[in-house]
C-alpha cells in the first residue's frame, strides 16, 4: 500500500489488527543532557477492528505518552526511540509528522487528556468541527451544519452549542464537543485519553454507550485511557495495566478484574471505592514510583511490593503468558501469590 492509499482508502476488513504496537519506547529529553525520562519502555499491544483496549495505571506511568506516540503528537522533547506502531499494516514511526497530520480525523483521531486544549479559544465549535469535515470532505458543504448538529446531539449537547465559543462551555460540555469532533470523520482508530472526567454518570453512560454503538456500526478500533475503572472495564475488551513506563499486565477485562497476575494490578483494583459499600478506610499503595530518569534495573514495582524478593530487584521479569494462556500476560516472578 502506498502512502496515498493509506491516507484515503479504508482497507477491506480483515483479521489483521488495525493497530499493532511492538516494543514502543518513548523518551523525553530534559535540561540535563545526560538524562532522559524513560516514560514508555517496550510497550506492546494490538487492537482489532471493532475492539477496545483500555489502558490504566498510576498517575505519571506513561499512558498519555503511549497515546501521543501513536499519533506522533509528542511535544518537542519527546521522541520514539525504539519499536513500531503498525496502523493498518504500515509502520507510522517511519512517517513524517506532517504525513500523519493528513490522516488525522478521518483515519486516526484522538481525544486529548484535558480536551479543553483541543479547541482554539477564538473560534466557535461549529467552525472547528467544520474544519475537520472540510479537510477530508466527508460531507458535502451544504450538509455540514446538519452533520455538526447531529454530532452534538449524539453527545447529549444542545445543537445550539455549535455557535458558542469554548470559554462559554462547562468542562464537560467542552469534553463532549471534543468527542463529537473526534468521531466527525468516522475514523478507523479512536484514541481517547480520559474522555469522560468531566461528565456526570448519566451523561457518561449515554456517551460511552453511543461510542460502543458507533463502534459496532463502523467497526473502528479504540484505545481508551482512564482512571475510571468502572467505566473502562465496561468499554474495554482487553485491559493493559501500566506501571512506571512498563506494561505489566494485559488480558481481558474479566481476567484482570477476577484474576490479576501482577501485584500492582491487584492493588489498583483493590483501591476502588464502591459507593454502595464504601470502606472505612481506602487502601493506598505506600511509597512512590521510581524516578523515570533513573529507573531500577529490576522490576520497577519491587520497592513497593509486598511479594518482592531479591530476584525482583536483580532483574526485570519477562512479560509472559500466565495461567498457560497467551491471552493473559504479566511481568512478575510471583504471579501465583497474587490475590485480590
Amino acid at each position: 500500500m502506498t502512502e496515498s492509499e493509506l491516507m484515503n482508502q479504508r482497507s477491506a476488513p480483515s483479521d489483521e489488527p488495525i493497530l499493532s504496537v511492538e516494543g514502543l519506547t518513548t523518551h523525553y529529553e530534559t535540561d540535563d543532557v545526560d538524562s532522559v525520562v524513560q516514560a514508555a519502555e517496550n510497550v506492546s499491544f494490538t487492537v482489532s477492528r471493532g475492539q477496545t483496549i483500555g489502558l490504566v495505571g498510576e498517575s505519571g506511568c506513561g499512558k498519555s505518552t503511549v497515546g501521543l506516540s501513536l499519533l506522533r503528537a509528542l511535544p518537542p522533547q519527546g521522541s520514539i526511540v525504539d519499536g513500531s506502531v503498525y496502523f493498518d499494516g504500515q509502520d507510522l514511526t517511519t512517517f513524517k509528522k506532517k504525513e500523519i497530520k493528513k490522516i488525522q480525523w478521518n483515519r486516526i483521531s484522538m481525544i486529548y487528556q484535558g480536551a479543553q486544549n483541543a479547541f482554539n479559544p477564538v473560534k466557535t465549535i461549529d467552525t472547528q468541527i467544520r474544519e475537520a469535515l472540510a479537510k477530508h470532505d466527508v460531507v458535502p458543504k451544504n450538509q455540514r451544519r446538519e452533520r455538526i448538529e447531529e454530532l452534538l446531539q449524539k453527545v447529549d449537547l444542545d445543537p445550539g452549542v455549535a455557535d458558542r465559543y469554548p470559554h462559554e462551555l462547562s468542562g464537560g460540555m467542552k469534553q463532549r464537543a471534543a468527542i463529537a469532533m473526534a468521531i466527525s470523520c468516522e475514523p478507523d482508530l479512536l484514541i481517547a485519553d480520559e474522555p469522560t472526567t468531566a461528565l456526570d454518570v448519566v451523561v457518561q453512560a449515554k456517551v460511552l454507550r453511543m461510542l460502543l454503538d458507533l463502534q459496532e456500526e463502523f467497526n473502528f478500533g479504540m484505545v481508551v485511557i482512564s482512571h475510571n475503572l468502572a467505566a473502562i472495564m465496561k468499554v474495554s475488551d482487553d485491559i493493559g495495566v501500566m506501571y512506571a513506563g512498563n506494561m505489566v499486565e494485559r488480558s481481558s477485562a474479566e481476567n484482570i478484574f477476577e484474576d490479576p497476575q501482577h501485584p500492582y494490578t491487584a492493588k489498583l483494583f483493590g483501591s476502588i471505592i464502591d459507593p454502595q459499600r464504601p470502606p472505612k478506610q481506602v487502601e493506598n499503595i505506600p511509597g512512590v514510583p521510581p524516578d523515570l530518569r533513573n529507573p531500577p534495573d529490576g522490576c520497577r514495582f519491587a520497592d513497593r511490593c509486598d511479594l518482592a524478593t531479591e530476584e525482583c530487584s536483580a532483574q526485570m521479569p519477562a512479560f509472559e503468558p500466565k495461567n498457560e494462556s497467551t491471552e493473559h500476560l504479566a511481568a512478575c516472578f510471583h504471579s501465583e501469590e497474587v490475590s485480590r
Partner: protein
Amino acid sequence: MSETETLLEIKDLEKHFSQSTGWVGSLLGKDKAVRAVDGVSLSLDRGEIVSIVGESGCGKTTLGKSLLRLIEPTAGSIEFHGTDITELPDDEMRDLRKEMQIVFQDPFQSLNPKKTVRQLVRQPLEIHGMSRTEAEARVVDALEDVGLSPVSDFLDRYPEEMSGGQLQRVSFARSLVLEPSFVVADEPTSMLDTSIRARVLDLMEELRNERDLSFLVITHDLSVARYLSDRVGVMYLGRLVEIGDADEMIMDPKHPYSKALIESIPSPTPYEEFDPADIEGEVPDPIDVPSGCRFHPRCPVATEECKRIEPEWRMVPTEGDASRYVECHEVDPKHVPADPQPQ
C-alpha cells in the same frame, strides 16, 4: 467535635452570563441571559466537607468561582465569617483570598506554562509577603503531601513536562500552601488513579481534622462524594435541588433527578452494561429555563402543578436521622395539595 460554627453562608446566589446574539442583536437589546447559577442558598460549617454533584453544565464550576468572586455574582449574598463579601473592595477581597482558595477543574489550563512547579506553588506565598526561605519549606511540604515525591524531581519542571494527574496535584498543593480555612475543590481527583486518589482524600480528611479546614468539593465521582463528605448537595440547571447527609443521600435519594443520578452509578465490575436512568426529553438549556419546576419536562413523576408552580425548598422526612432538604412538589405526599391520586 466541638460546637459547630458557620463559616460560609450563601443566600440566593445568582450568576447570569449574557449570551451575545451578535452586534445587531446587542444593539436591539436582544442578548439573552444564561442563568448558570439561579438562586442557590447553602451554608457550610467550619471543618465541614460538602460535595456538590450534578449534571455536566448545571452550574457547579460557576457556583465555585462566584463564591470566591473570581467571577462577580449577579445577585445574592455570601457571608464569610459573618461578613458579606459581595461588596468588599478589591484590596480587602485580595487579602481575604488567603483564607479562600480554589483548585480549578482543568489543571492544563489553570497553571501558567512559563513557570516551574516551584514558582507556581510559591507564588501565592510571595503575594502574601512570606520570605523566600520560609516559603520554600512550605512548598516542599505541600508537594510531599500530595505524593509528588521525591520533591526534588518535580520542583524545576514546567507544566508541559508533567502528566495530567501530576498537574492536578500541583494545583491542589498550590491551594493549600497558604493554609486557607476554606477551599473550593473542583474535581480535585478526576485525573488520579485509585491509590493516589485515596491518598489525596486522606489528606483532605486530615486537614479537616487538624486544621478545621472546610471544603466544597465539586465532583462527578459519587464514591468520592460519599466517602469523603459530611453532606452531599445535588444541583440541576442552576439550582440546588436536594441536600442531606452523604450516606443517606446515596442510599435514599428523594428528588427524582437525584434518584436518576444515583441509579446510574456504574457498578465497579466488567460485567453489567452501562445502564443510565432514562432521563427523557430535551437537554436543559440555562437560557430557556422551563416554567414551574425546572426538571418537569424530564421528570417521570411530574404533575400539572409541577409545570406551573415553582416548588419550595423545604425539609422532608427521611428514614435516617439527618435533616434533608428538597425542592420538589412530589417528594413528601403530605405536602401534595391538589387532588391526590388514589394509590
